[in-house]
């Protein structure tokens, strides 16, 4: 079931990215150059902040989430990525009351689907793979089972500390708007690895992952980022 679900997300992601590639494709020449593009040198560290999750948090009462990202250009259009953040949820339903907080990080790689056209070209459409980890603290929860016939029953579930592990397939785009200032989005399909740990009471929101009572989720980030660049040793001046 998990594999089927992952394949579905993978197919959707690939289709989405091929659409993006098609949209950004440059006009082709009549001649076909089959030579491998020359490696484009240069270092880049790009640090960014997600503006989508705080925007969502400002429109709902029950949760907040903040995410940051940093990536480093390795070579051959591969980027190492680290993402981290925190968030909380405050549930106050008639039949369920609790709070949860969590920190998270994700590590992985992005692979650009375009060869760089010039040393100054850092725009990219990418696919990525991540491992994610969240450390969660959930408060004591109070529940009520509403039964209009036999009467309501109320009880409590003790506080719990949980860890959440997941893997992500991601895809997205990033373009340079001004010198060093970039914007982009990432669409993520996430698959939790330790579902059995969330049987007692899964937090409604896990920052970095999403809805805690779902074993697989889609997520979306919109990043504004700043790129710091320098030349590699031995690079020719551009």
């Amino acid at each position, binding site marked *: 079931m998990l594999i089927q679900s992952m394949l579905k997300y993978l197919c959707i992601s690939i289709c989405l990215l091929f659409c993006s590639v098609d949209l950004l494709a440059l006009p082709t020449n009549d001649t076909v150059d089959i030579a491998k593009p020359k490696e484009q040198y240069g270092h880049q560290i790009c640090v960014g902040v997600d503006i989508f999750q705080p925007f*969502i948090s400002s429109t*709902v009462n029950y949760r907040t989430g903040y995410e940051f990202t940093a990536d480093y250009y390795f070579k051959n259009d591969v980027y190492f990525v680290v993402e981290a953040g925190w968030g909380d949820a405050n549930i106050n*339903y008639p039949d369920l009351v609790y709070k949860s907080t969590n920190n998270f990080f994700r590590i992985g790689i992005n692979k650009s689907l375009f060869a760089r056209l010039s040393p100054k070209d850092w725009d990219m459409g990418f696919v990525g793979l991540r491992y994610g980890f969240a450390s969660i603290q959930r408060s004591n929860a109070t*529940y009520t089972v509403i039964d209009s*016939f*036999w009467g309501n029953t109320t009880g409590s579930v003790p506080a719990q500390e949980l860890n959440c592990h997941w893997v992500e397939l991601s895809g997205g785009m990033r373009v340079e708007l001004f010198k060093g200032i970039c914007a982009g989005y990432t669409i993520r399909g996430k698959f939790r690895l330790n579902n059995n740990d969330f049987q007692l009471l899964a937090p409604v929101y896990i920052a970095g992952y999403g809805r805690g*009572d779902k074993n697989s989720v889609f997520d*979306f980030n919109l990043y504004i980022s700043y790129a710091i660049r320098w030349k590699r040793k031995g690079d020719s001046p551009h």
Partner: protein
Amino acid sequence: MIKNSCKFILLIVATVFFYACTQERLPCAQPTIMSVVMGCHKWIGVDTLGNPIFKDTILNHPTVTARDSAGQLRTSIYPQGSNSLIVHMSPISDSCQWIISADTTQVSLDSADVITFYYQSQLNFLSNACGYAYFYTLQKVVTTHHTFDSVQIANTTVNTNVNTEHVKIFMH
């Protein structure tokens, strides 16, 4: 053209995720009160191997009655042609009784039967949308014998599966 297409795709994606993320509470799409489903059957003979043959029995406006938490008798009247009845267990007890009249058009104390359920209850987390619910494990079911011949537990587990017949009622 390309920029406009990218903006359009981004707008659609962001809108979809915005809608999904801003729902305060997803609607609960499953029952939170678990039901015991009872099917009515009548013995009609035996097959060539000697096994008993039963057929579903249609009841004429059956009713189910129990005393609720306030001590009031509450009755559910089923439409004509029903062949299965649904009752609920009390989560604060390990047994409960339901008075079942198979034919409301001919009401008399002699025609109503009392079915007593003995069970264990287990608290289960369904989801944040639905909260908690009690599941049950049926241990024993007994009945009086006015219009019912006997009862038999067909499935001991009472949970969110609504397509299961838990108890078979055999009519005289």
